[in-house]
């Protein structure tokens, strides 16, 4: 049985990275990380200011959860960010299955990397563009930032107008592959 009715015995967690690398942890609350066949202890310390450190194999790592949504975590370790999705054995299988069957999406969305004001669009709808080609100018922190295309394709849709204010992650432009 994959599931027991009480979640308390469900203690196997599979942490997946953005690149679908997986790390398995059995009962993480027991504070061990497995290396090869050996279980090496993890120590967690919180200093006076409240910074949290993990000590493993005599090395100290500063850890911080910077964002969390359901089972998706963005973790900073020594200031470097990692996107981790924590899966159960079943949801991991599901994820693998869905990734395998994922049809190449035809449309790529260009998101706003930061909140700001749109100064100018450098492309028009239906225009053919190359990868890395500048699409628009977004002003944030008094800097004009050039947003470039991540793929080659045709501009499908432009969702904003110059002078519009956009939020982080707003879909600015849709590019058809």
């Amino acid at each position, binding site marked *: 049985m994959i599931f027991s009715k*009480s*979640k*308390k015995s*469900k*203690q196997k*967690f599979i*942490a997946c*990275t953005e690149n679908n*690398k997986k*790390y398995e*942890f059995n*009962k*993480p*609350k027991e*504070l061990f*990380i497995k290396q090869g066949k050996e279980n090496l202890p*993890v120590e967690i310390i919180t*200093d006076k*200011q*409240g*910074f949290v450190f*993990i000590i*493993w*194999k005599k*090395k100290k*790592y*500063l*850890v*911080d*959860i*910077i964002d*969390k949504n359901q*089972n998706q*975590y963005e*973790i*900073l*370790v*020594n*200031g*470097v*960010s*990692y996107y*981790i999705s*924590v899966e159960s054995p079943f949801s991991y299988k599901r994820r693998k299955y869905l990734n395998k069957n994922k049809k190449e999406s035809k449309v790529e969305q260009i998101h706003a*990397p*930061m*909140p*700001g004001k749109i*100064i*100018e669009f*450098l492309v028009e709808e239906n225009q053919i563009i190359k990868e890395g080609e*500048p699409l628009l*100018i977004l*002003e*944030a*922190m*008094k*800097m*004009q930032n*050039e947003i470039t295309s991540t793929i080659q394709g045709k501009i499908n849709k432009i969702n904003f107008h110059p002078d519009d204010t956009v939020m982080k992650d707003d879909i600015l432009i849709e590019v058809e592959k």
Partner: protein
Amino acid sequence: MKKIKSILIANRGEIAIRISESAKKMGIKTFGIKTSKEPSAYYLQFMDEIIDFTEITNDIPEFLDIDRIIYSIKEFNINAVHPGYGYLAENPYFAQKCIDEKIIFIGPSPDSIYKLGNKTIAKQLAKSHKVPLLEGSEGNLRDTKHAKQLAKKIGYPVILKAASGGGGRGMRIVEKEEDIEKMLRIAQNEAEKVFADRSMFMEKYVRNPRHIEFQILADHYGNIIHLGERECSIQRKHQKLIEESPSIALNDELRAKMGESAINIAKASKYRNAGTVEFLLDELGDFYFMEMNTRIQVEHPVTEMVTGLDLVEWQIRIAQEEKLDIKQEDVKLTGWAIECRINAEDVQSGFTPYLGTIEKINFAKGKNNRFDTGVTEGSNVTGSFDSMLAKLICYGDTREKAINNSLLALNKLQIQGIKTTIPFCKAVLNHPKFKKGDISTSFILKDMKQLYYQEQDEEMIAAFWAALNHNVELDIEDETYVDYEKGKEMTPWLINKRLKSL
């Protein structure tokens, strides 16, 4: 001599704090400006008096509101104003207005600011004083056609720059003719936004150059010295990220030669106060004058560390017409200093600004390091200001030791709540080419495979931390006791009324 008794610091962040420190040392009273964008900013804690600019909201940012600043200086009977860097630091109109109103402007004369601030005039000045220059448009570009013709003559790549620009704004490199029209338009628009001036000039773009700049001090009596160089080759999109003094690329002979050129430029513009002459240095040891910054620079601390001088103090002393009593031969560069800029930027997504609140900050103060910060616990990082939070400056007897000390200090510098350039700085300082001193302004683009430093097991630690937290969260949910019975307890009043109404 005019003795300065009080200073209005017309700036914010770390530089406002830095200025206040020197002023305090000299027994000068400091006034700070409180703005509506950050009414509880950290720098205000360092001011003796605070002038409140939050009452009237205005379209002009507070630190650019000349009329209001002048009015306040008079209202509070303040002697002098220090503009820091950015904002009004290189505004000749403001400097002139100060003179008209009998306020001491801590900086050069309006005439010097104007001449050196306009790159076209500055280049003519350099040319007439035999300071080597890059080929370029010798004046502003007339139109796209002119730009195209000229670029063809000089040869691609060329660089477009805003005539009144600086700090990487209104600047674009053009690799080929097809791009020039578009790039010119982008650069002009940006220049208009930031400097209210669309005029652009063009010059030859040198590949793999080093950015070397010389710190100048000049008094009212024609005494001019240089305090050696700073190398600021580690830049991204013309924004400096790591600076050091001295530079491994210079020997005494070249240093003397470049220093002399720097002094010549200053002389030609009748310069006084602290200033910085920027050069490009190519692989053959040829150098070209770029521009002169007529203000205190962000990276001034590295010079202070190797010369033992307090540059802000000297700015104030010169402004009160003291004589510069240091001779060029007295200036000795001892040891090595490196500055890492700690910006609120997400290095992993292309250095995009990262907004948020600094929940916690911790740094280890040591004998060999200095931490100039404008933020503290609880400070907000908003889109209203540039992204620099702090500067970590470390010293060592040798370059190697300075690098090691920087790495040690970076490891002990902890910031929670936002993403910063700390992992980037570590990656640079750990890079074998950087360690050898083999760097250029295209170091980040060409030599760095990964822009942030990672320990071997970091990803696994992140995975573990996520799994552990998820485990704890699920258990808490599982153990939560929902008291449904309590929802059934009602007063007779309520239960009766509720029943009747249905």
